[in-house]
């Protein structure tokens, strides 16, 4: 398939804690296609952000070990040194961060920050860069782009800042944008605006987006394909349609079941038992979700879980999906 833009192959990202390495991302393989929105969902601590930061090698390498392959344009990004990586970052791959206030340099005006990547990846002169920055600012919906160009980040509201960071990431028309929880720090109305904007820009530029989020609503609205992550592994991979209509893995089903429905008379919200195990105590063998569904017979799980294609392009990890039932439903 030459439709693949980015191919992640058996990626394992480990952090050093007390001299020992613990894998936060444990053997993840995904292919990102051209022109698609690929969502990665999961609870906090599932390794979503660790995965996204590994792609651009933004981890502090003093205590991080990244193994596997991240193939982009025929080269393994993990093998590149800093200066070679800098030729890819910003030009072909860019990142939108979670908190727009910290992602913008507080002492530099918005305009020059947008021009930053243009400086290193294009031969534009000052005037061209300025024009491009102002065009980008109006594309992301700034009413007065010239004024915003000369503003400091603290003079903008949260939504405007996130628009500005989107403008920064779009500057060189990258092929891949990694959006790491782009709406988490914003309130709901602004969230909707930002998501609309992202989708509109994605359609226009035909670039791909890796959308990291824990908000299933965002996924439903945006994504073409979805990977559900749990404890450093991808437990279910499907098109957004399939996933919401026909969730298979117990974890996915539990997640969807814990979203309250309007009109439903609930005294308690459904919750998944237990918590995501911390890195140091993560089970490394068998189905990692098993201990959060203690009512399920252990023999349902595979000893060495593998992916099963339940229908075309819909993959589920481990066999426990087959006879899964919720605790309050009683035995199947």
């Amino acid at each position, binding site marked *: 398939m030459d439709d693949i833009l980015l191919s992640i192959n058996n990626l394992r990202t480990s952090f050093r804690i007390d001299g020992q390495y613990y894998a936060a991302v444990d053997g993840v393989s995904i292919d990102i296609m051209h022109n698609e929105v690929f969502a990665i969902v999961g609870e906090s601590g599932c390794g979503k952000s660790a995965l996204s930061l590994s792609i651009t090698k933004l981890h502090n390498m003093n205590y991080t070990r990244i193994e596997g392959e991240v193939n982009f344009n025929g080269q393994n990004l993990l093998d590149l040194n800093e200066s070679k990586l*800098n030729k890819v970052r910003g030009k072909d791959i860019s990142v939108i961060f979670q908190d727009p206030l910290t992602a913008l340099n507080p002492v530099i005006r918005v305009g020059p920050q947008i021009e930053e990547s243009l400086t290193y990846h294009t031969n534009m002169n000052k005037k061209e860069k300025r024009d491009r920055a102002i065009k980008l600012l109006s594309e992301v919906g700034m009413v007065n782009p010239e004024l915003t160009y*000369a503003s400091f980040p603290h003079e903008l509201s949260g939504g405007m800042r996130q628009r500005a960071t989107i403008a920064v990431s779009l*500057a060189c028309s990258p092929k891949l944008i990694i959006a790491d929880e782009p709406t988490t720090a914003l309130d709901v109305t602004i969230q909707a605006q930002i998501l609309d904007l992202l989708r509109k820009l994605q359609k226009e530029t035909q670039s791909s987006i890796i959308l990291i989020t824990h908000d299933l609503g965002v996924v439903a609205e945006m994504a073409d394909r979805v990977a559900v992550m749990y404890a450093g592994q991808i437990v279910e991979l499907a098109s957004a349609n399939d996933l919401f209509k026909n969730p298979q893995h117990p974890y996915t089903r539990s997640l969807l079941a814990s979203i309250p429905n309007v009109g439903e008379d609930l005294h308690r919200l459904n919750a998944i038992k237990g918590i995501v195990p911390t890195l140091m105590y993560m089970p490394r063998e068998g189905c990692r979700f098993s201990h959060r569904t203690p009512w399920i017979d252990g023999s349902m799980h595979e000893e060495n879980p593998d992916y099963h294609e339940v229908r075309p392009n819909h993959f589920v990890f481990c066999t426990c999906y087959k006879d899964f039932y919720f605790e309050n439903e009683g035995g199947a």
Partner: protein
Amino acid sequence: MQSLESGFSEKPKSLLKLFFYELKHDILASVSLVMLIAIFLTIFIGAFIVESLFDVMWVTPRPLPVSPANSGTLLGLDSLGRNQFHLIFVAARNSLLISFGVTFFSFIFGIVIGVISGFYGGKTDNIIMRIVDTWNMVPFLMVVIALLSVLSRTVPVFIALLTAFSWVGRARLLRASALSQSQMDYISASKTLGTPNIVIMFREMLPNLVDVTVANFVLTLAASIGIETGLSLLGFGLGWDFPSLGTMMQNAINPMYLQHFPWVWAPALVLVCTIMLCVNFVGNALQRVADPKQRYA
């Protein structure tokens, strides 16, 4: 979106404009700035004129200092019989040169080493900081005093010696701030844009350290004047042929001078205090400019 835009009242101001804006609201700082400029100009121009017209070291042999009233000079004669009014210009210039030099050079070293150490962190940081710690352990006063009694006591030597010990503190300070800044998202964001590390360090991170730097620059400036004055007061500063504010105050150690001949040490003392106070007031205003959070609305 309309309501968001209305948050702006006017075009963003430049840093210099902001500084003047701050001064307008802070009378103390503006008076200090004017005084400081006046003092500096007077000292440097005055020292130039005095040195070209008179022999500052001209000695009128006297057993004791002569008061202004009895000598017919503005500030009287010191214990050696030198004209104090001439002396103070040259002394103040020497003191200022030393403190400016020490502050400037220790910040250059401190910034470069601190920022590199803080930005890279980990092993690099560890190695650099252990060297800094080791250097910091060397007893400053002892070594300076010992070396000064061997080396020639001139302004450049003095600057070099004090800088050699003063940069350590700056490096640690900058390193601490750089370390916290390097964890910020905007650094990662810049990395994802393909910006080289050296540019991120000194063009993007450094401006964020300005508040710490400016505040500390001012303190260091005041402290350097203090150190120079202190060393000279103890007799380990510049030689007799290089008058400084410290050497002018040296006589105040003697109780008799302290009580009966105040014109010998008072002018230098007043000048040191005035300069230090003004520097601090201006520094506070500068700090508010550098840090938007402290600004008057």
